[in-house]
Each structure stands twice: as structure tokens, then as C-alpha cells.
């Protein structure tokens, strides 16, 4: 029987993962609280099956992503173009004011699968782990990752 205390402790240590998943995939603030609770609920429900073969953080990432992406989410209010308008696209004369904000907006522009692959990569996950989380093959992940990185860098350079 899974211990509730053990689970809570693990969640406390890794709650940043849940916040991150919400910030990256939820389009409306009203959904934030619902999704946070839902991820906790689904993680607790699945916890008895957690066998420790992967790290808890990887497992929680997987549950979080699955929950958010299979949840009924409100659609984006802002169109991608409007979103991009606020993106501080750099030019040789005008460098980025805030690179991290630009990266955030550029990542949010990607489709959800690409977004997942690049964010897992940036989070330090190996291609094999990304493949395990998404269900893609390792080679597939590598090819996609290369393409996504190129397109992100180009987008951020304002090309």
C-alpha cells in the first residue's frame, strides 16, 4: 500500500514539474487550479503502480503531461500571430530584451508534441527518456529534436 506521506514528500520535492507543465500547456489561468488538482489526483491514483524503475520526477512528468494533454482544455484566446506580435523579435540593431521570455513565446508557438520534446530536452532528459515519455522511437526523437532546435534558433534570431 503506497504511503500518503511518502507521496506527499515526493510531490513537495517535485512540484515544480507540475507548475512547469501547467505553464507550458494551459491556455487559460482559470484552468491552472483545476489542472494542478487533477495532476495531483491522477498521480496519487497511479502511485501504487510506480515501481521506481524510472526517477519519480520522470514519472511525475509523464503523468502530468498525460493528464494535461488528455484534459478538456479551453482553447487559446490569443491567435499565434497575436502571440508572436508580442514576441520581441531580435534584429541586429535591436537585440532581445529578455531572451527567456522570447524563448517561452517561441516554445508556446510549437505544436504540443514538439513543445514536449524540446522542453524535456532542455530539462536535461536524454533522448531515450524522451522516447519513453512520449512513445516515439529514440531515432525519431533525435531527428525531431534537431529540426525543432533549428527552427527555434531561427525564430529567435528573427530569420
Amino acid at each position, binding site marked *: 500500500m503506497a504511503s500518503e506521506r511518502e507521496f506527499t514528500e515526493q510531490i513537495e520535492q517535485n*512540484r*515544480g514539474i*507540475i*507548475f*512547469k507543465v*501547467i*505553464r*507550458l500547456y494551459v491556455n487559460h*489561468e482559470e484552468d*491552472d*487550479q*483545476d*489542472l*494542478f*488538482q*487533477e495532476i*495531483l*489526483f*491522477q498521480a496519487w*491514483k497511479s502511485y501504487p*503502480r*510506480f515501481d521506481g524503475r524510472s526517477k519519480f520526477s520522470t*514519472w511525475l512528468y*509523464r*503523468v502530468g*503531461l*498525460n*493528464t494535461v*494533454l*488528455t*484534459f*478538456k*482544455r479551453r*482553447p487559446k484566446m490569443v491567435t499565434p500571430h497575436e502571440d508572436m506580435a508580442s514576441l520581441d523579435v531580435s534584429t541586429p540593431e535591436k537585440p*532581445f530584451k529578455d*531572451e*527567456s*521570455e*522570447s*524563448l*517561452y513565446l517561441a516554445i508556446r508557438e510549437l*505544436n*504540443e*508534441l514538439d513543445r514536449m520534446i524540446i522542453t524535456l530536452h*532542455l*530539462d536535461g532528459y536524454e533522448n531515450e527518456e524522451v522516447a*519513453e*515519455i*512520449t*512513445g*516515439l*522511437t529514440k*531515432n*525519431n526523437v533525435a*531527428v525531431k529534436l534537431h529540426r525543432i*532546435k533549428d527552427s*527555434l*534558433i531561427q525564430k*529567435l*534570431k528573427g530569420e
Partner: protein
Amino acid sequence: MDLKEAWKKLEQEKLNQPVAGTVEVRKNSKHPMQKLIQLSKITLAFVIFFELCFSFLLVIMVQPIVKVFLVIMIIVYLFFFFLNLKILRNIQESFRLDLNLKSTLKQVYDNTMSSLAFQRKASIVIYPLAATAGFLMGLSTEKDAAIMMQKWQVVVTLVITVIILTPSCYYLARWMERVSYGKYLNQLRELIQQFEKDEVESV
């Protein structure tokens, strides 16, 4: 731009910031699959309730033609009860959010589709039967339903009732299904297509 550095900064400044109002852990789920499971359980409860009503009517109704239809209704409802139970168990067993995303998406999509398809198929059988049984019971309160059914006007009225009621109830149900699950199914389909597109590209 160094992506990893920008990402670290983004994590600290934005992504890892707590979501507003995270106070307590809810005991129930708002996940669409959980709602489908709930809906299935409610359907089962209604089927049991109707089975009891039909059984009671079977005892108090005296006209054989009405009794025959009630028996048919009981059998059909019983059949759908077990079918619904099977689908419910299947959904409950396969609904897991700790597997990889690709299989989770397919599992959620397939389960939603099969549950909705079952409701649709059941309605196609149940609506005409229910309409006929109701019609006969209405007739039997005034006159002998078996004798009344020998008149062509009564038969035509019944046929028209069934022809009008069945498709209208069916399309109303489909419309409600689209309102409740249409956008959700599109959302899942789009995600599955992203995977499929990727598979095609890599071949």
C-alpha cells in the same frame, strides 16, 4: 542565444512559479474519462430503475400484447445493461495516465469513441421499442390494445410516431454528444495526428 541558459532563466522566473491558489488536494476528478465512467454508472443505475418499473408494469398490466412488449423491453435493457457494464469495466481497467503519451492518447480517444458509439447504438434500438411500448400502454388504458392494433389508422399512427421520434431523439443525442465531446475529441485527434505525421515523415 544559448537555449539551455535561457531555459534555466525561464524556469526560475516563470515556469517554476507556483500556480495561484494551490491549497488542497481534491478527492474527485474532472477528467473527461472520469466523467464518462460516471455517466456509464448513471446509465447503469437508470437501467436498473427502468427494469424495476417494467417488471412492476408487467405485473399490473393485463393485456397480453402490452405484456409481450414489456418482456421485450426487459430483455433488451438487460442485454444493454451487461454490454454497458463490459464497456465500463474495460474503460476503468485501461484508463491509465502513467504510460507513454502516444498510447495514453489512443487509449483515451478509443475509449471515448467506443463509449459514445455504444450509447448511439443502444439508442437506435431502444427509442423505437420504448415508443411502441409507450404507445401500446397508452392505448390499453382506454381500450383493448390488440383490437386497436388491427385498425390501419392506429398502425399508421404508431409507425409515424416511431419514424418521427427515433431519428429526432437520435439526432438530438448526437448533437448533445457533439456539444459535450466534439471539441474534446478534436483536441485528442489533433494530438494523435501529430504523432502519426511524425511516423510518416520518419519512414
